[in-house]
């Protein structure tokens, strides 16, 4: 108390905080050793890590075998990554003919090349490029993969598989379901009874059935309703099913964001004379979508993992092909390596999506969250 009086009123300086509340020591105190319970939990957690981590590391790295061609190379007692190595191209391309695999590569490289300018701030024609990617690229991609034109050998979709099939289904599903979901969300909130009834019915119908049912319907039931001779490709039917299924979830996620926009924003836009579509595109949706980025990315991650269900209609996605490889008599007994690798790849993709969504959130933050 006495030290505080040495300053005249109005001249009290800014003092540094007490040393024990900042830096490493401050962090440790605040997060790990706040009180007895937390200290005990910290010690317990450290013990559990001590018990678990060394065997895991020695299985994955120290005792594992990475080099070789046959199962005889695996003698270290740890994981046998040789198995993954020797099957890697099959895991990526499925049963796609080996000589034609450059087509799969070029399809993905083309997409990446097209996407790069979209992330550059200086690129001016994003709208045109975006439209190209949305409408023209899928056609190019399809013919590149399926062939049958320009002298490309036809590759039936039943031969597609592996990680590339997983990516195709996910990308088509995500890109297709987003605009459909957006329209459904707007439609469900529409004042026109016909529109809102249709959208509500559509959403509730698709959300009410499991994805497996949708896939079964698309592959088994749907052809029965078609006239004889008319047939769509099994993969295309599955893609449509997955897209519509996800769009119902997208719609509800987006609608959640729309509900969160205060009435004043609609009125502010209306009072300026903006039409419905203009106020939606410039005022309401940009804010609503920003609120629901975590939900949208959640849907995308869910879809990415749900693609494994196409296995039941006879398409071999990434998980399917890994599973098939583990039953190969030459490599029996390495299922754990297969599944761990599979889990790791899925995790890398999902975690990247999650990180990307967080970076968008930071970029779009305009300081109005108080």
């Amino acid at each position, binding site marked *: 108390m006495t030290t505080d009086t040495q300053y005249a009123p109005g001249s009290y300086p800014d003092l540094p905080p007490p040393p024990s509340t900042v830096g490493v020591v401050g962090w440790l105190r605040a997060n790990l050793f706040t009180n007895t319970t937390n200290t005990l939990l910290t010690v317990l957690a450290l013990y559990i890590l001590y018990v678990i981590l060394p065997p895991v590391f020695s299985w994955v790295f120290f005792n594992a075998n990475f080099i070789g061609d046959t199962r005889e190379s695996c003698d270290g007692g740890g994981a046998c990554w040789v198995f993954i190595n020797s099957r890697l191209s099959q895991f990526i391309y499925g049963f796609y003919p080996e000589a034609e695999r450059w087509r799969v590569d070029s399809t993905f490289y083309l997409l990446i090349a097209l996407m790069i300018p979209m992330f550059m701030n200086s690129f001016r024609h994003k709208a045109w490029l975006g439209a190209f990617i949305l409408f023209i690229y899928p056609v190019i991609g399809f013919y590149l993969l399926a062939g049958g034109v320009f002298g490309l050998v036809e590759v039936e979709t039943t031969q597609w598989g592996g990680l590339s099939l997983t990516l195709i289904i996910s990308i088509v599903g995500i890109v297709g379901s987003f605009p459909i979901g957006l329209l459904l969300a707007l439609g469900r909130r529409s004042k026109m009874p016909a529109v809102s009834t249709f959208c509500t019915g559509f959403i509730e119908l698709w959300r009410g059935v499991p994805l497996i049912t949708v896939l079964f319907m698309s592959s088994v039931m749907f052809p029965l309703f078609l006239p004889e001779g008319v047939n769509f490709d099994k993969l295309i039917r599955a893609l449509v099913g997955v897209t519509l299924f996800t769009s119902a979830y997208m719609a509800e996620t987006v609608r959640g964001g729309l509900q969160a926009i205060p009435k004043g924003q609609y009125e502010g836009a209306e*009072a300026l*004379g903006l039409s419905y579509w*203009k106020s939606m595109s410039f005022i309401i949706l940009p*804010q609503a979508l920003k609120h629901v980025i975590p939900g949208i990315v959640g849907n995308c991650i869910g879809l990415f993992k749900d693609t494994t269900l196409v296995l039941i209609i006879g398409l071999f996605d990434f998980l399917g092909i890994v599973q098939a490889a583990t039953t190969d008599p030459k490599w029996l007994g390495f299922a754990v390596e297969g599944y761990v690798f599979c889990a790791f790849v899925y995790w890398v993709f999902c975690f990247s999506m999650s990180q990307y969504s967080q970076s968008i959130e930071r970029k779009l933050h305009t300081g109005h969250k108080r």
Partner: protein
Amino acid sequence: MNETATGLQSKLEVSDEVIIEINDMHKWYGEFHVLKNINLSVQRGERIVICGPSGSGKSTLIRCINRLEEHQQGKIIVDGTELTSDLKHIEATRREVGMCFQHFNLFPHLSVLENCTLAPIWVRKMSKVEAEEVAMKYLERVKIPEQALKYPGQLSGGQQQRVAIARSLCMSPKVMLFDEPTSALDPEMISEVLDVMVELAEEGMTMICVTHEMGFAKKVANRVIFMDAGEIIEENEPLEFFDNPQNERTKLFLSQIIQH
């Protein structure tokens, strides 16, 4: 703000041209009769202040003028266009009628400048450069050009309301509606907004303000309208209105707000 009421009043002219005409207008919220038999004619250049106890329908009335609320009976004609459910007419009216809200309703995801240029670009079809010039002109008039690149969330309440006024002015409206523009502000920010509104009146803008700022009413308004329970109870010139209220309810209202 020290200018005498008569001094400012005499400078402002009202033309004969009628810009808003409301005839026998009624509005219901479901069963509830909010606006009863409203008759109001506003000439170009008029500054009208509407006051009354809360729930008396004053906000609802001015929100009917740009059809943020729908009326069920009677006629509202704004600048020669009758407001019906015809969307084209509604949008045409909204282009000519600016509005400022109690809670500003700025667009938080757009910068101040973008808030001001959005409607001119997409509704008035101005070029971006031209719209930005106009926006900067009005932001200077409301005395915050230096905030143009900030986001609304970074401004104080008074600054936000001035941006909202500038945003409306960028559409060069024929009429400005103010719905309690100072009610959500901290006391020290009220005058900066009122100053802008006074200047606007001096430039001849037709204004209809719902407000409890009686000083502003005395200084700027050429007519004060008192509403209670959905009806226009009394209207008069400000001096007469405040010094010599006729209706009992007006007297009660004025005695209540002046006591505090």
